[in-house]
């Protein structure tokens, strides 16, 4: 029977070596092309080759897709693909009570049970069936080998394509086209015809298997979503950041310089930009994060749009140079793709625990604008905006993203290049005496570029005299300069859009205030509660420092303000301190994003109490 449903959540899970990330990514792309709204969440171990078959080595890729608005990778899962016992052990608790398990039973033998830390006598799948789940048992490994028995490939090579069987099968189950993946395989295995043949064959075998074998009582259709008219693509957060940076450079007529040192989950920005040399991007893999930001400061001095990105430990290393950029009042974008901390923390898990570091974490009085992206597609606009502020206001800017956004993806209605606003560098006027620290009405100094005769000037990290920029130890001057620099950054609040309520009433009982990647979960929870007639609104802050001028007005329009964060309460501290309101924290610090239901429950609890 074919059943049409509004949305579905599928989780592909298997051993790290089972290719589940690729499978999930393919399924997402095809669903995006199919016209669904969607959101994805890859969840993989920190180790490249975690011990085979163990729970620690399980890699998962979750996708929520629908004909309705989708803001999160979903809560409980409809269909769990478990390539081995460990995958089921890890994710069974995420299934809906009547959810479906597609199990590769070749991954549930005694050895796999042992590796998953279970007694060899357990029959996991019967237990799952008894618990009310719909279990579909398939010998995926065996069927894959069967399909490839004449391929001339070794068993090991054959086994590598078993994820394609899974993909084909789930395509069939959800009525997807397999063509986009066939095209993908053609491209990927351009120079390896035997692997192209094998993967194509297994993908089709999986699809046909669904058709011929009557294991499934239902087949599902998820229709196109009614998204606003426009052109769309599927995009992941780090990719969107890279594209935003390139676009901003083009719109400012600057060359783009990017320096980084590899670190999860920021590396993909480096990879992406290293591959965009024909856009004039110069990317530099430095010897460490200090060198990366140092080189970026040099590139900024050279007159380029300079950017560096890292994550927790690397951002800590960049602190001193960030202070220098602040003193030089030179454009620089520093991206922090946050991960679980402190120290090395949880490298592949997500967290929002670097907000206080971003706003306060420097020696001396060194306020730096901080802005945060809220979702993969939002990364484009926020990266572009970070560059605009840096260039037009002559300041370093910190952009906060996180692992959840970096790796997640969703459909993005992309703009035309001609629709993007121009960015205007504040160049020093030619043929005029140059005073490096003379400021305009916005307190912005002008930018003199080496190579301009008559503008030769020296600057540095020592306190400088107002206007001339000469070194100065004069007490009155220091106080004046500290206040001026602070005023300059505060002035940016007049040059950003006003804060808006994302959804829900403009005044009422409860306002949920979020920032960063909690956007989707909060929005989903609030829309849902509004349907139930609960007076709750959602406000999401992009400009974290300085705040938009009208933020306070919004906060005061509600009786209660709740601030959910993936940390131990950071934005809530700032809001309480700055506005003296009794904002209530809601914290989750598990390396995992909020489920919308968690937010919903907390609000209801609050309303009761």
């Amino acid at each position: 029977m074919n059943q049409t449903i509004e949305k579905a959540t599928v989780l592909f899970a298997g051993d790290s070596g089972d290719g589940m990330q690729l499978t999930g990514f393919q399924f997402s792309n095809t669903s995006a092309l199919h016209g669904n709204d969607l959101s994805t969440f890859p969840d993989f171990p920190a180790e490249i080759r975690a011990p085979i078959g163990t729970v620690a080595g399980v890699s998962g890729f979750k996708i929520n897709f629908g004909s309705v608005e989708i803001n999160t990778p979903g809560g409980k899962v409809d269909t769990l693909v478990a390539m081995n016992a460990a995958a089921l052990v890890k994710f069974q608790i995420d299934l809906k009570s009547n959810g479906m398990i597609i199990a590769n039973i070749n991954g549930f033998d005694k050895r796999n049970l042992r590796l998953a830390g279970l007694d060899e006598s357990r029959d996991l799948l019967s237990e799952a069936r008894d618990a009310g789940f719909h279990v579909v048992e398939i010998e995926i490994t065996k069927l894959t080998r069967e399909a490839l028995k004449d391929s001339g490939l070794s068993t090991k090579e054959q086994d590598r394509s078993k994820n394609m069987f899974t993909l084909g099968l789930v395509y069939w189950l959800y009525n997807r086209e397999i063509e986009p993946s066939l095209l993908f395989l053609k491209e990927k295995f351009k120079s390896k015809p035997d692997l192209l043949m094998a993967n194509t064959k297994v993908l089709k075998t999986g699809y046909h298997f669904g058709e011929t074998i009557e294991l499934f009582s239902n087949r599902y259709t998820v229709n196109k979503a009614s998204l606003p008219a426009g052109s769309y693509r599927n995009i992941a957060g780090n990719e969107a950041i890279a594209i935003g940076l390139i676009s901003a450079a083009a719109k400012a007529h600057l060359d783009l310089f990017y320096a980084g040192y590899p670190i999860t989950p920021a590396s993909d920005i480096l990879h992406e930009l290293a591959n965009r040399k024909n856009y004039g991007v110069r990317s530099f893999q430095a010897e460490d994060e200090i060198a990366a930001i140092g080189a970026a400061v040099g590139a900024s001095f050279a007159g380029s749009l300079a950017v560096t990105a890292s994550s927790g430990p690397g951002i800590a290393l960049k602190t001193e140079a960030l202070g220098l950029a602040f003193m030089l009042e030179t454009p620089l974008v520093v991206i922090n793709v946050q991960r679980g901390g402190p120290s090395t923390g949880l490298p592949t898990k997500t967290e929002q625990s670097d907000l206080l570091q971003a706003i306060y974490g420097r020696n001396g009085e060194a306020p730096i604008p901080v802005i945060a992206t809220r979702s993969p597609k939002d990364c484009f606009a926020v990266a572009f905006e970070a560059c605009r502020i840096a260039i037009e206001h002559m300041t370093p800017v910190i952009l906060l993203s996180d692992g959840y956004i970096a790796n997640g993806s969703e459909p993005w209605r992309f703009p035309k290049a001609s629709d993007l606003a121009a960015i205007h560098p504040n160049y020093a006027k030619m043929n005029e005496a140059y005073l490096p620290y003379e400021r305009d009405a916005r307190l912005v100094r002008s930018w003199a570029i080496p190579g301009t005769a008559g503008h030769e000037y020296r600057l540095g990290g020592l306190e400088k005299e107002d206007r001339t920029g000469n070194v100065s130890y004069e007490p009155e001057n220091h106080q004046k300069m500290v206040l001026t620099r602070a005023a300059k950054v505060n002035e940016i609040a007049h040059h950003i859009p006003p804060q808006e309520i994302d959804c829900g009433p403009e005044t009422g009982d409860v306002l949920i205030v979020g920032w960063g990647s909690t956007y989707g979960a909060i929005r989903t929870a609030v829309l849902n509660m509004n349907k139930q007639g609960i007076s709750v609104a959602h406000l999401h802050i992009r400009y974290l420092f300085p705040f938009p001028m009208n933020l306070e007005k919004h906060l005061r329009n509600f009786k209660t303000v709740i601030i959910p964060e993936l940390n131990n309460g950071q934005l809530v501290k700032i809001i309480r301190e700055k506005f003296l309101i009794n904002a209530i924290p809601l914290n989750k610090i598990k390396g995992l994003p909020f489920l919308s239901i968690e937010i919903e429950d907390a609000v209801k609890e609050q309303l009761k109490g």
Partner: protein
Amino acid sequence: MEIADLLKPKDFATDQDVRWCPGCGDYSILKQVQSIMPDLGVPRENIVFISGIGCSSRFPYYMNTFGMHSIHGRAAAIASGLKMMRKDLSVWIITGDGDSLSIGGNHLIHLLRRNLNVNILLFNNEIYGLTKGQFSPTSELGKTTKSSPWGTIDHPFNPAALALGADASFFARGLDLDTKGLRDILLRAHAHKGTSLVEIYQNCNVFNDGAFAPYSNKSTRQRSTLLLEEGKPLLYGEDANKEALYIKDMKVYSAPLESIDAEDLWIHDSKDAMKAHLLSRLFDPYTEDSLPRPFGVFYQEDRLVYEEEMDKQLHTSIQSKGIGDLDSLLQGRNHWTI
């Protein structure tokens, strides 16, 4: 070019008061650098001095060019980013022994191996000047300072060996007081395409006075120093009884000049990497019968220059893929319209 030709050394001085201690070796180095600037033929606005932190790193304030007094140890990194974006600029890094060999050691070796076309002037006074006299990574073993009242137990760096070990494409050693030698070295460093590391022995007359006295004192310098001249034999000592260096079984020996066959003389060849390594090992503390300390250009090699390779890749990429079109970047490979 014409304007540059008309410039005088004093055009490179700024209106800032020079704040080094009276008698500091930094003055003489500043003077030499200012004096060669007009000879470079580079317009003033195309010259940039980037320094770290230390007494020596005050230098950019005194040069009427573009300049940045940055943070401790990071000048090499900052200059690298600058040069990658602006091949047209003549970039000079000013650093101290603490700045470049302690806190900034990592950036120094990576700059040397990458070989960007920049010049590094390493002011080696074998002490931390600005922080008032602690030992540095080049201070001699056993040196007593405020932070080493019992004498250091740190084996010192040999900057020449370090540089060559990091595959520096140019290494030279100069002395603050040897104005002519310094001038030649600076001009050759500028002419070299690649990273030129110039170590300059600089007297800190306040915290480490006389550290290089054996090489500057009239009474000892002829015996203690070896002037490296291209194509000439390595000779030292008083004119009346010159000693010559020669190599045997990969070891360096000296003997009276007249006792050595002409073909056995060590003729200086700065292109010879093995000989440069041997020169770098002439590093024993000065005694009456130690081998002399070399001054001049040890090594110079032409090899790939980082920022040029970076540009080449950029152009190759444009040739093969076409110049990037923003709209096609925005729309990506797969897109659909609603």
